[in-house]
């Protein structure tokens, strides 16, 4: 159901004002800097360190269980990482100024205008994730590196090149935002075509040009729109709308890009791998994942890469090929291969939700204790520092995970059936592949 949220004058006024966004962003930037500080200078015990607990339990749970499924790129709208660089780039925190920055703003290299670098940066984090997720200093280094990389790139390249092409988090948020029931679009595309100055892209005295390098008049999918709302502020014709829509609306016109297809494989593969490594009972596997640089880690990394980059895409390609054979479709494999990966979007989202619920529910009590004693220095700011660890009631967890996975699978089958019909090829083998992957995930979870 489509409800135009910006139809309400109060909502439009609220969203046009930069203050609410800036307030949230500033608070988050404070939290982000505290996470870096506590990770660097606080206790090395991960379960007592604000950096670890707030980034990998509190933020991650909110992101993957609520923000991405419901708002898509809602997090990107308030993400503190690109903020300092963007303020420097614009030489303004709120409204645009006349002052121009004294450094060049190159365009991002044409060859890199895709999400392959985001796939690589995500994979790099994934390979070291056992260390990053559990070692406060490693988390601090990664967070600080992202902050400085975003800052540095914003001084060299135009707009939010870091977010658009490099950020490992932005890549998967963009992918999964296609499933979200919220979108920013233009009301009437004809108005955009006749608009000469295109202030939504180029900026005006009312606001900045799109930081995500997107012309809103051509928006068809959520992938690259960061919901920063600048276009809402600059459009002289109030032609930009924020509206609800059915879940998965973008999946009706799946992307045919190989970089996005591989993002879907990487995300599904990483969810399965993490579930086995982190939630399984195999201590040797955990040690191998943790001892970065060792021979065991080399084997783990090779297996992880082979699983996510070769095994899953390989079996998927076989399934797509089998579907074409069944339908006696002689078209090339590539378009069908990329289009069918749309089905991995709801499935991947379900995998990540089911995986995250397990460790978030088990470790949620750490959030309260870390809040009272963020550095693990014996503080007790809110009287909750001494709270004993206790998992949330886990009795309903398996049923909840089964429901999420079955729901994700049905949604993904529905998605590939539509794709199969459009391409005149059978979706049955891909459905069987997805059901098999879901069974594997269930086997690891239950």
């Amino acid at each position, binding site marked *: 159901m489509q409800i135009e949220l910006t139809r309400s004058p109060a909502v439009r006024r609220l969203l046009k004002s930069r203050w609410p966004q800036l307030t949230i962003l500033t608070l988050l930037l404070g939290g982000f800097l505290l996470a870096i500080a506590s990770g660097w200078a606080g206790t090395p015990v991960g379960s007592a360190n604000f950096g670890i607990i707030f980034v990998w339990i509190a933020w991650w749970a909110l992101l993957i269980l609520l923000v991405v499924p419901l708002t898509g790129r809602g997090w990107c709208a308030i993400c503190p990482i690109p903020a300092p660089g963007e303020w420097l780039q614009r030489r303004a925190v709120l409204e645009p100024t006349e002052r121009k920055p004294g450094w060049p703003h190159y365009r991002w290299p044409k060859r890199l205008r895709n999400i392959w670098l985001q796939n690589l940066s995500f994979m790099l984090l994934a390979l070291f994730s056992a260390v990053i997720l*559990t070692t406060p200093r490693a988390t601090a280094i990664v967070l600080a590196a992202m902050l400085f990389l975003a800052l540095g790139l914003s001084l060299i390249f135009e707009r939010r090149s870091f977010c658009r092409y490099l950020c490992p988090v932005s890549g998967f948020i963009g992918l999964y935002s296609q499933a979200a029931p919220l979108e920013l679009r233009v009301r009437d595309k004809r108005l955009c075509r006749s608009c000469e100055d295109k202030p939504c892209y180029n900026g005006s005295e009312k606001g900045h040009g799109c930081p995500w390098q997107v012309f809103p008049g051509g928006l068809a999918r959520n992938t690259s729109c960061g919901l920063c709302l600048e276009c809402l502020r600059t459009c002289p014709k109030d032609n930009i709308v924020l509206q609800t829509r059915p879940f998965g609306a973008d999946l009706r016109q799946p992307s045919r890009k190989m970089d996005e297809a591989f993002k879907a494989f990487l995300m599904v593969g990483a969810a399965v791998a993490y579930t086995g490594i982190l939630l399984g*009972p195999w201590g040797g596997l955990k040690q191998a994942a943790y001892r970065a640089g060792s021979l065991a880690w080399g084997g783990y990394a090779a297996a992880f890469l082979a699983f996510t980059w070769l095994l899953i895409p390989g079996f998927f390609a076989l399934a797509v090929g089998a579907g074409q054979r069944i339908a006696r479709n002689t078209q090339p494999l590539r378009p069908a291969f990329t289009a069918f990966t749309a089905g991995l979007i709801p499935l991947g989202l379900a995998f990540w939700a089911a995986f995250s619920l397990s460790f978030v529910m088990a470790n949620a009590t750490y959030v309260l204790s870390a809040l009272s004693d963020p550095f693990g220095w014996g503080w007790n700011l809110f009287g909750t520092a001494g709270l004993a660890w206790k998992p949330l009631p886990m009795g309903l967890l398996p049923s909840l995970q089964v429901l999420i996975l079955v729901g994700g699978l049905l949604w993904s089958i529905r998605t590939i059936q539509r794709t199969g*019909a459009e391409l005149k090829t059978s979706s049955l083998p891909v459905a069987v592949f997805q059901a098999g992957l879901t069974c594997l995930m269930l086997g690891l979870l239950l």
Partner: protein
Amino acid sequence: MSRKRRVIVFAVILLGLGWLFTPLPAGAARPVQRTIRVEASQFAYQPAVIQVNQGDTVTLEIVSTDVVHGFYVDEYGVSATADPGQTARLTFVADRGGTFRIRCNQPCGPLHPFMLGELRVGPNTGLVRAIGLIAFATLAAVIATPPALISRES
């Protein structure tokens, strides 16, 4: 969707629901007393999976081989702490069937939150039911939406 197809889908859904509530063989072994030695070390338990039958009285002798480790069983709520070199004993009646995660509840190093084991009481019927449900759901989805129907929709 044609009437015939609707009937088949309905039948598959009924079968799926039936599968969820059909009693599965739970293993007819008589309850016994079991003593199992468990070694805890960073960041695993050995054996990683403890298999018992429903109704067994289980005594776990937990020995830590490096630092202090905890031993907490989800849903059962029972726990013990194992100091290095000393044997901690934990006795309980395995009266609830299913698979339960064992967690270390004493911070023991970087991977502490992920130091997990499994207690399996009886066969893993939850997994068998879930996989059956996946099979029925896939079948229902495939039958419910034939390609021709989607072409017309889109």
